[in-house]
């Protein structure tokens, strides 16, 4: 809301502009900008145009002679066309620098000398209007500084009015706040209304068919008006608050809106069929053309201002073209009504129509302002457009407003604020804001809420009024005294922290991506068992690329990888830890199943840092190592099974399983087609792990198992097996031998003299008995049993 301090000062005495801004901000009306206008117009004076001729050498220019109050007329070349000889206009004299920075100098334009510049409103920094010269009142003496003549110097405040305070969306509203703060009185405008002729009630009838949507509809009739432009002072007022001047009658309604905050509407009474106003909801299939020229199909929830025959305005939102004030209008009907907020909001949203009127009605207009605003507007129209006001108000008022009463216990401010507030301070502050104390006793008092304070209905609301005025600085700083529960770190937080540390220790950087992606990106990651289900989709996404909730983090990471590679960052290790979204299981108390996922992508050199490392590219075992780092950090003993999901290379990928066989995730090289879809080369590896599965399998608290008291016996074993025999199977078979404490694979060899299709696996085996020193004989026997088991079970041959 833009507030003109010049205008505001008509209703309340003001301190300096910066102080006004500071005080308003301090009570909850944040002043976002303080703009000084009409400054720097020192060299601009009023000038009368004495003569105007066409420029001899330029089609679009004129040569004028003007009286700038200096005796000798001046010659000025001008490009505008909107003036007549005799008009008074602003002249920027030679030497002036205009607010836009233009410096005025003596100039020759197409061979004709010019001693200054005639200005538009925009050139003076007064408004955006650059359509022609700013035409001033002819009564202004030439030579008068324009800033003085127009009272142009003003300070405009951009005030952020929160949605709960529609009462402050006007100059009177802000004046009330300032008056309450400073202990001043508000000077309300007192319209001098002179009524004449037959009663208004004979000119128009008003009927409300939907009282639940319209509690009151009051109208006045002004006859014999002459539609014309507004006087400059009015146009300036509106423009300074960002409202365009249209005509005297329309401007009068807007002026009252900005002054008193109550939206009004003016109809051409002669266009109101049957001279009857009906406030009703729209009929099925009904349409209306609004002032913006659009035809709108209405719904039965939309409230209309109609005449005998048809709808003529969307109530409280926008007028209709048929009943619009036009140049020929002579009889004006002024509407001042109170519409229920929620209905206005629904209509405004349904039709995408946000107006000054709907903005105020949907927040809650002041029911006490219906009649004062109507009177003010009628008087103004009669004054500006020369009509007479018909006696009386046609007032349909099916639902009178009753001021709510709110009780405040004297102890409540201290209970809520932690600081005592004296009773007389409570009464003074609330009284200043218009809350009238009714019944008062030892326990508390009951306050009548002023009609404009639609936001106040609870005791706490009154406490806020008190503290808002008093200032939060008056409240001390304490810490809550009561003991809290023992703060528990949930298991998933510990799992998360350890997983992060493990991956960061392995050189991964954490990525954070949007939770929504393009639907096509998720296709390769779909769970085959739920293939029929779409991902959860947004109704109103930003774009198709951000339209569905991701079911895996991998596609986002692949996009990140691709982007980084385009920036020539080719060694990429990224992980993300976030939720993925799937439809909720039956009986859920939340709309979707949101589970954590830990995903990573890696590509480039195994050791990207420098001179001491080789250029070896990352391979499957590096990706697996990253997963193992996470699993080890969580105390999870995993199994590996060839072949991950469809998004992975079928030969170079694995499924990760917990010790109990429950799936934990997948790891491997991207499927070449998926890589291509993300514009990635071959050799990009990725993994994803289920957060929930990790939490279930994690063993965060280690168990101490004792230190062996007897020495171990070490034996190496080299066996030749068929290519398809997995190392895991060989190791598992070795570990079946009870005396084996541990077995590790230290070499895999293919090539002569090993026959094609076979490989040599070299294992280091550690034997130990928990209760005695193992003899060589016992170890040899165990070793022999292992060899026999490998031969029998896996077709292994001992390598000589």
């Amino acid at each position, binding site marked *: 809301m833009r507030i003109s301090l010049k205008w505001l000062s008509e209703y309340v005495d003001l301190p300096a502009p910066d102080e006004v801004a500071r005080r308003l901000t301090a009570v909850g009306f944040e002043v976002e900008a303080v703009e000084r206008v009409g400054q720097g117009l020192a060299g601009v004076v009023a000038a009368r145009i004495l003569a105007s001729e066409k420029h001899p050498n330029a089609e679009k220019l004129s040569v004028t002679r003007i009286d700038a109050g200096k005796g000798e007329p001046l010659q000025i070349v001008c490009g505008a066309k909107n003036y007549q000889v005799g008009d008074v206009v602003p002249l920027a004299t030679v030497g002036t620098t205009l607010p836009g920075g233009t410096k005025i100098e003596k100039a020759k334009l197409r061979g004709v000398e010019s001693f200054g510049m005639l200005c538009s409103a925009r050139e003076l920094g007064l408004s955006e209007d650059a359509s022609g010269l700013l035409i001033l009142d002819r009564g202004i003496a030439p030579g008068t500084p324009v800033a003085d003549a127009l009272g142009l110097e003003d300070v405009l405040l951009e005030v952020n009015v929160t949605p709960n305070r529609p009462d402050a969306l006007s100059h009177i509203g802000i004046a009330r706040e300032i008056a309450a703060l400073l202990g001043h009185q508000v000077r309300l405008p007192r319209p001098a209304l002179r009524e004449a002729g037959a009663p208004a009630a004979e000119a128009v009838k008003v009927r409300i068919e939907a009282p639940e949507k319209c509690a009151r509809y009051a109208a006045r009739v002004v006859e014999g008006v002459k539609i014309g432009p507004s006087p400059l002072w009015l146009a300036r007022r509106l423009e300074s608050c960002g409202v365009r001047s249209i005509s005297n009658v329309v401007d009068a309604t807007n002026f009252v809106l900005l002054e008193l905050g109550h939206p009004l509407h003016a109809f051409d009474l002669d266009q109101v069929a049957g001279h009857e106003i009906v406030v009703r909801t729209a009929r099925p299939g009904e349409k209306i053309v609004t002032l913006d020229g659009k035809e709108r199909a209405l719904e039965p929830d939309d409230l209309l201002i109609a005449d005998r025959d048809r709808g003529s305005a969307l109530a409280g939102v926008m007028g209709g073209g048929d009943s619009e004030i036009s140049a020929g209008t002579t009889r004006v009907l002024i509407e001042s009504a109170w519409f229920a907020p929620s209905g206005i*909001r629904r209509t405004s949203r349904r039709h995408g129509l946000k107006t000054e009127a709907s903005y105020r009605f949907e927040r809650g207009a002041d029911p006490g302002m219906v009649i004062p605003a109507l009177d003010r507007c009628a008087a103004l129209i009669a004054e500006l457009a020369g009509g007479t006001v018909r006696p009386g108000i046609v007032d349909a008022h099916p639902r009178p407003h009753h001021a709510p009463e709110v009780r405040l216990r004297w102890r409540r401010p201290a209970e809520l604020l932690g600081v005592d507030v004296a009773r007389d301070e409570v009464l003074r502050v609330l009284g200043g804001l218009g809350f009238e104390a009714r019944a008062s006793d030892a326990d508390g008092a009951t306050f009548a809420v002023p009609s404009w304070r639609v936001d106040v209905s609870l005791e706490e609301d009154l406490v806020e009024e008190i503290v808002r005025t008093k200032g939060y600085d008056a409240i001390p700083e304490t810490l809550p005294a009561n003991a809290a529960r023992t703060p528990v770190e949930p298991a998933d937080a510990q799992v998360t922290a350890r997983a992060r540390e493990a991956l960061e220790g392995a050189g991964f950087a954490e990525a954070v991506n949007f939770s929504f992606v393009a639907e096509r990106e998720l296709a390769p990651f779909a769970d085959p068992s739920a293939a029929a289900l779409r991902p*959860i989709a947004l109704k109103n996404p930003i774009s198709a690329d951000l339209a569905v909730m991701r079911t895996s983090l991998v596609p986002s990471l692949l996009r990140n990888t691709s982007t980084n590679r385009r920036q020539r960052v080719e060694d990429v290790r990224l992980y993300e830890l976030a939720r993925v979204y799937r439809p909720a299981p039956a009986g859920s108390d939340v709309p979707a199943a949101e589970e954590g996922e830990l995903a990573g992508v890696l590509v480039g050199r195994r050791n990207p840092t420098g001179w001491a490392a080789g250029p070896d590219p990352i391979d499957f075992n590096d990706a697996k190592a990253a997963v193992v780092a996470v699993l080890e950090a969580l105390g999870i003993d995993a199994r590996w099974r060839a072949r991950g999901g469809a998004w992975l290379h079928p030969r170079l990928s694995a499924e990760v399983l917990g010790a109990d066989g429950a799936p934990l995730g997948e790891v491997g090289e991207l499927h070449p087609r998926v890589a291509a879809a993300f514009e990635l080369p071959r050799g990009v590896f990725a993994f994803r792990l289920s957060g929930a599965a990790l939490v279930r399998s994690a063993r965060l608290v280690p168990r101490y198992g004792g230190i062996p008291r007897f020495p171990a016996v070490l034996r190496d074993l080299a066996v030749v097996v068929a290519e398809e025999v997995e190392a895991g199977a060989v190791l598992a078979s070795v570990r079946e031998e009870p005396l084996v404490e541990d077995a590790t694979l230290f070499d895999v060899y293919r090539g002569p003299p090993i026959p094609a299709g076979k490989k040599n696996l070299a294992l280091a085996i550690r034997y130990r008995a928990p209760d005695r020193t193992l003899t060589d004989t016992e170890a040899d026997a165990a070793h022999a049993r292992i060899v026999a088991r490998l031969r029998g079970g896996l077709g292994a041959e001992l390598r000589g």
Partner: protein
Amino acid sequence: MADLLGQLEALAKGAREAIGSAADEKALEDLRVRFLGKKGELSAVLRGMGALPAEERPRVGEVANRVRDEVEALLADAKGRLDARKLEAELAGPPIDVTLPGRRLLPRGHRHPITRATEDISAIFARLGYEVASGPEIELDWFNFEALNIPPDHPARDMQDTFYVEVSTLGDGAPDGSVLLRTHTSPVQIRAMQRLGVPPVRIICPGRVYRSDYDQTHSPMFHQVEGLCVDEGITFADLKGTLAAFARAYFGEGTRTRFRPSYFPFVEPGAEVDVSCSICGGTGRLPVPGGQLPPDRATRRCGTCKETGWLEVLGAGMVHPKVLENGGFDPKRYSGFAFGMGVERMAMLRYGIDDLRLYFENDLRFLEQF
């Protein structure tokens, strides 16, 4: 006998001279073989002992042992001297090129600044006794709005542009009602109160939130940390003290806080909380480097706080009675405060990040700076 003793004496003398002048380990080894080896000089002398009468042998043997001990000691000495000289030579050589980059065991990883800021904020509140709570991001309208005193058709809904979810894609398991992406972490207040059932409630909830607004200064997804404290006798003074303590812990000991009245439908009274600018120290001006400047040019405008000296970083207030009721708490008996902050902004102020979009581009050249 005298002959043998003379030979031993000569051997010892020869050894003293030869070992004293040995130049390296090889020469020393040769000398050991020459004097003490199986075919060496000492063995040769001892072989002559067989011809001596028995009573003379002990005397010669004694001398022979003494000579062997002496030669061995001489050899050990010489070896020590040579080793020392060799070590000296090694230590005196030129240093290696220590400026070569160290060989990395593994490259260092990086935690996203949003995660870092979230962890820092959470750690501060953990010290104040707050537990971390969480709630769904895909949320029912009721929790996100209605329970927080924002009914349908309420203009406060305009404060947050909302993403709505296509209910047909949620499957049959979802509860009935309009579903959206939470626009703030505040619905967790309701869920936490309902879950805990009894006071005290002291939770913070960090998490992702969503608003349908995407330009240079708005991201459709961003992060908030919500806080809630409910108990008997909780006051606005407690809120002030808590957030002042937090601000000092996060921004530094000298940080001041300022509360301004504001409106959030789920608190009453409500406030916006400013902290003194962490960049300019609350003065609104920054020193201009370059020494002797006139006073009017020695400082420049602080762009972070726009010369106000204050940064708006938190929204807060006393929990609205309707919100307490919706969480299952009797507002006549209990009171509480709530607050919320934007993590992106907190991280920007801490790390000097100047563009919101950097957070979600995941450019490694950005991530690697953390």
